[in-house]
Every structure is written in C-alpha cells, then in structure tokens.
C-alpha cells in the first residue's frame, strides 16, 4: 500500500526508536528462552529425571531421531493428516457457511444440530471414527477435519450474514442472479472473516491430528510421544512436544504470510 502514513525512512528518529525497541524485544526473547534452558539444565541433576528429563538429553534424543530418519517419517505422517484434514474441513466449512449464510431458513433448521455436534469435544468422536474408518490415516484426517470444520464454518457463516444488506439490495435491483449475488458480494464481503477462520483453525488442525494419534496409531508425532511415554522415556516425550511446537510455528507463519498476501485485496 503506497500510502503517506506508512514510511520506512531510517533517518526519522521516531522510526529509529521504534526499530530499536523491536530489536530489544527480540534480543530479550532469546535471552529469556536461553535462561530457561540453562536453568533447566543446571537444575536437572537434582530433579527426578523421569519427570523433568534435561535439555541435553532431549537434544540428544532429537538428534538421534533426526539421524535415523524417525523424525522425518513421523513428521510426514502427521503433516499429511493435518494437510488432508485441514483441506477437507475447510472446503466443506466454506461451502456450508456460504449456503447457510444465504438461506436463513435452512440455517435455522440446521442450527441446533450443528451446535449440538459443535458442543461435543472432538476427542469423544475418536473411538467412533476408529470403528468406522480403521486405525490408519483416515480417522486422524476425519478428526482433524471435523475440528477444523467448525472454526471455519462459524467464521464463514457469520461473515456472510454480516455482509452489508444494502450492497445485496443494490445489486439485486441491477438484476443480479442468486449466483451473481454470491460471487460478487457475499464471497468477497465475507472474505476477511473466512481468512480469519482459516487462520484460527490451524492450531486446531494440529490438535485434531495429534488427538487422533494419541487414541490409536503406529506412526506420527503423537505416536512418538505416546510410545516414548510408555517406555518411560521422558526425553523422547519432550522431544516430540518440541517438534509439535516447531510444526505449529511453521503452520502459523504460513497462514500469516498467506493472509498478508491476500488481505490487501479483500480488506
């Protein structure tokens, strides 16, 4: 956006001060994280190793998994579950959100049913999905998809309902068909809300996939955590958790990047 209100003039003292402040925050974050890790390492000989492990053991376990391919194999399994579940859930959610958002009567019929399902913690569906879909990829994709679905569906639905009625009336009088109303007004009007829903659903997709893996699995990061715990290998549990964190950070940055790219056109 070429706008006079935005400037990156380095000579401006106010901007220089703001940059310094941001650098300080960044450095402080690194320092805090380093301090926590050092303190953890220093204290670990005096702590119950089974409960707390130690950063060096966790690093060693992670390195071992990286070297022998365990990490990559399980990471890919989890990533596949997340990607498929997220894509399926998002597509279904956006379509249903657009339809129910534009037909209030249909929405009124389905509202209590959807809210009833929404209210149930998705983990409770796990056993049912395993009975239905077996123990491999599918039940995890489905749990992930269902979790993601509600976030994106609710965002889309609200987005469509909040589209300015006056815009719809105006183009209806110009002779727009239902389909044109949707393409020209509803979808672009609801786009900021849909993008927000897509963003908020990312960590939920992770939750869905890992929950599925924790219930039953023989591959994936959730499986690594579960398996390590059953072997009383707390370093392995922590290593798995850190990998999840990294996965979450990557997924969030990807969505942030995508919303920044598209946000300009729709905002």
């Amino acid at each position: 956006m070429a706008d006079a209100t935005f400037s990156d003039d380095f000579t401006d003292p106010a901007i220089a001060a703001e940059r310094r402040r941001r650098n300080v925050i960044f450095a402080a974050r690194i320092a805090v994280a380093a301090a926590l890790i050092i303190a953890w390492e220093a204290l670990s000989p005096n702590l119950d190793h089974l409960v707390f492990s130690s950063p060096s053991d966790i690093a060693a376990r992670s390195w071992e998994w990286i070297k022998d391919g365990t990490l990559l194999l399980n990471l890919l399994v989890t990533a596949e579950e997340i990607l498929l579940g997220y894509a399926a859930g998002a597509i279904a959610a956006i379509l249903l959100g657009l339809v129910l958002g534009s037909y209030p009567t249909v929405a009124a019929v389905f509202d209590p049913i959807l809210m009833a399902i929404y209210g149930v913690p998705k983990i409770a569906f796990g056993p049912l999905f395993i009975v239905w879909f077996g123990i491999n990829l599918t039940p995890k994709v489905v749990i992930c998809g269902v979790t993601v679905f509600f976030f994106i569906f609710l965002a889309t639905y609200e987005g469509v309902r909040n589209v300015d009625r006056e815009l719809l009336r105006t183009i209806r009088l110009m002779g727009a068909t239902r389909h044109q109303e949707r393409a020209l007004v509803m979808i672009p009007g609801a786009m900021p809300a849909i993008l927000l829903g897509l963003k908020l659903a990312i960590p939920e997709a992770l939750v869905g996939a890992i929950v599925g893996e924790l219930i039953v699995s023989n591959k994936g990061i959730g499986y690594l955590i579960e398996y390590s715990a059953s072997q009383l290998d707390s370093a392995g549990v922590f290593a798995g958790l850190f990998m999840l964190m990294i996965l979450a950070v990557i997924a969030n940055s990807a969505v942030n990047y995508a919303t920044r790219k598209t946000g300009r056109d729709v905002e």
Partner: protein
Amino acid sequence: MSELEAWPKTGAVRRAGASAPSIRLDHVSKWFFKNGKRFVAVDDVNAEVEDGAFVALVGPSGCGKTTIFNMIAGFARPDRGEALYKGRPVLAPNIGIGYMTQKDALLPWRSLIANVMLPLSLQKVPAREARERALDMLQRVGLKGFAEHLPRELSGGMQKRAALARMLVFNPETLLMDEPFGNVDIQLKLQLQRELMSLWEHARKTVVFVTHDLEEAIALSDRIIVLSRRPGRVKAAITVDLPRPRDPVAIRFEAAFQEIHRRLWELCDTAQEDEDG
C-alpha cells in the same frame, strides 16, 4: 424537452402526451410485528407519481417513508392495497430501476470504474462498451481521474458522486432515492443537488426522492407528498410550481420558494401536533 403542463386533478406536472402514472400506491397499508404486537407503519396511503415527474416524500422520522420506498422497490409487499409500477403490482425486487440510499453501497473491494460498470455487466453489455459508458458517466460527475481508485480512497462526496454515476449509467427510467444526501455537510449537499438537477434536466426520469429536508424537497421536486407521523398517512400533496431548469441553490431565495416552504413547514408542524396532542 416538451413544455410541462399542469395536471389539474392533483395539480401535478406531467410531460405532454404522457400516459398512465409510473408509480401508484393504491390504499397501501403495511404493518410490522414487534414482540407479538402489531404496529402500523403505513396506513391507507394513496399516491401517484406521473411519468417523468420528480416527487419528494417528506415527513418526520418513523413516518414510513422508507417503508413506502421499499414497497416501490419491491423489497416489501403491502399488507393491504397495492403498489403498482407501470400498472403492474410490484411483487419482486423491481429490477432495472435506479436505486440509491444514504449508504453509497459501493462494493469496497472494487475500483470506481468496476463499480460503475457493474450494472452494465450484469445486463450483459459487452465489456468494452460498458467501460466506455462508465468512463463517460464518471466524467459527467467529475470523477474521470479517479476511475482506478477504491471507494475508501475517496472523500464522502466523491463516493456519493460515484454512487450517482452507477445509478445513472444504465439509463434507468425510474430513480428511487432514499435520503441519498442525508449524511453529508450542507455545502456538499447543495453541490450534489445541483449536479442531480443538471443530470435530471438532461433526461427527465421519474424520481421518487425520500427526504426529511424540506428545502431539499422544494428545490428539487415537482410535487411533495407530506406524510404524518406514525402511522404514516398522506397529510397533503403540494405542487411545486417553480420554473425549470432550476438552480437548487439560487431558488431558495425566491419569494415563491419561501411561500411554499412556509406552507410546508406549517403542514409538518401540525402533523407533529396531531400526534403530540
């Protein structure tokens, strides 16, 4: 443009040789339900708008102006009586009329030119011709240099002009305007009135103009329908026999204008008293 002649029955002006009224409200009533209680918004309203006439609808807020407007546009159906457009009852959104309200309703994600082209492309006018006509219209409202701007990059007055251009670009026979200049400052309002008048003089369209600004109603219209406070009833219909073409600013200082203003003011005053008393 042919000479305007007085129409004796209602005192309205109409074009020579014009046929049936363009818009007719025939004993129209409309009510709403709120918490299970019915309240009447419009009560037994009879009114006609002749082909090519500029008719203003004035009255206090809550007098059902917008409800009447919506029944003509086809967004609401009368609960009793009939709203007729060109002799036919309005049963669905009245496609093809020009429509403008207080909100400009420009699509915020489309450039001005794309907004103004929209009614044309919906009517399957070829893109090239649509673009030319839209550019021409933008030029007529003084926005030629801003075709590629997004609405939010423009001032409120420019957005109004763009909305005006979009309403006029497909040359609708009838214009419905619901307080189109309701939320702009007085200078801009006068300027927009002036532009509307000069555009209207070019091609006399049938206009229904809802406003609560009495001076605006007199300055622009051929006839003013005064509504009472809720439930909305027709209090009076006043003919504005001021010469055309008019300058909506200069005309305010004419004695005839002020005479009509005084009469209108008294009518609205008593419309209020009836309700208070």
